[in-house]
């Protein structure tokens, strides 16, 4: 009798691999994953961290979602922006968020940003870059405010201001010219908005609105759709036809409910549902 392995299964099923390889050779194109194109930024200011992101999700040249949320929840005072394959970033951050919650219950301490960073980098390294998630992780814990980037292959950087995604060069240009240490909240929010604008207006993979998240030691504030520079203009005229524009000849109304009978089920005395 073969003994079962004590190790947890890898989770991913490779049994279709031979078939997929065969089909690909015959010319069948692989399905395209929704990517987040994207501009995500993070910056350190006097009281903590501000994270910013645009809200466009693309599928090749098509905009798949005009208002998607790229700032994911890890713990109460730690958030993570995700660029790359949308499913990968959402799934990875959700998994790490669950693991952080379990870890917090196990240790009994407020969770730290380095813990989330280590969990993320170890997982991404194990998948050798096949999980396409480029992340900006920031938060405030008992040791202070920290900001990290995590690349899809598992390398990390600890920096005072970071940008990731296809619009990262545009956003980084803004940061490099205007960032200074110990900014106030208003200055930092304005800088982050400017950096995301640079990405939205100069990069095709980023667009729509600006999301921001301000994390301080006392509380976290999620500013969803902080600025909306791409609102659709309202049409100037009304294009409806007035009633009676088309002549009609015959009217027939059919009642869909012909007859209705209520029969209570569930034994001789039908008990009323307990809705208290």
């Amino acid at each position: 009798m073969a003994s079962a392995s004590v190790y947890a299964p890898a989770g991913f099923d490779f049994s279709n691999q031979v078939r997929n390889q065969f089909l690909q050779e015959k010319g069948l194109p692989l399905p395209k994953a929704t990517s987040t194109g994207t501009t995500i930024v993070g910056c350190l200011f006097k009281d903590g961290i501000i994270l910013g992101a645009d809200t466009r999700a693309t599928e090749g040249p098509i905009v798949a979602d005009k208002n998607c949320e790229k700032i994911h929840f890890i713990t109460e005072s730690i958030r993570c922006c995700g660029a790359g394959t949308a499913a990968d970033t959402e799934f990875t951050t959700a998994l790490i968020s669950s693991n952080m919650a379990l870890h917090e219950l196990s240790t009994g301490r407020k969770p730290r940003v380095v813990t989330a960073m280590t969990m993320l980098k170890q997982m991404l390294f194990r998948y050798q870059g096949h999980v396409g998630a480029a992340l900006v992780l920031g938060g405030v814990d008992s040791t202070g405010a920290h900001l990290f980037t995590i690349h899809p292959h598992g390398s990390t950087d600890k920096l005072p201001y970071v940008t990731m995604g296809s619009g990262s060069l545009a956003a980084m240009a803004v940061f490099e010219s205007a960032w200074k240490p110990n900014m106030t909240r208003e200055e930092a929010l304005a800088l982050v908005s400017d950096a995301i604008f640079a990405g939205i207006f100069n990069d095709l993979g980023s667009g729509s609105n600006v999301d921001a998240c301000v994390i301080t030691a006392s509380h976290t504030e999620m500013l969803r759709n902080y600025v909306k520079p791409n609102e659709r203009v309202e049409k100037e005229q009304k294009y409806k036809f007035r009633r009676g524009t088309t002549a009609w000849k015959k009217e027939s109304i059919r009642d869909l409910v012909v007859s209705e009978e209520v029969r209570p089920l569930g034994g001789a005395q039908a008990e009323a549902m307990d809705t208290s």
Partner: protein
Amino acid sequence: MEPSLRLAPSPNAKAASVQDTSNSLGLHDTLQYGPRSIATEVKTVSPIRQRLENWEQTQDNLKLTVQRNVYGLHAPVRLLMERKIVSSMAQMPTLPQSNLHLDILMGRDETLCTGDFFGGVEMRTPQSIHQEMERKYRV
């Protein structure tokens, strides 16, 4: 597995086997996978698959090797004995598998990984008990 201090599984795996595409008779299943070709079998060895499937085992082997070097042979032997005792009771293949004691011994009782929610019995197409048993004992 022989004692080794590797951190990650080695990239050169053994050669691809016919087991992937075999039907119940043990031969290549042409109906499902197309004609058999050596090129397919050699090319479709995915390095990521081999790495993911052997990851936990390699890490575990490292820990056991270090314990053997530091404390002596008895340390890993006792741990392996405990695991074997705990996984001795076989479970019904059609129901979701769960072995809490083994999870505690392997140190994964307080973490979640992809294997916990992908690839389980619930995800597969519902098969009869005979097919499930066949799948289990082919391991």
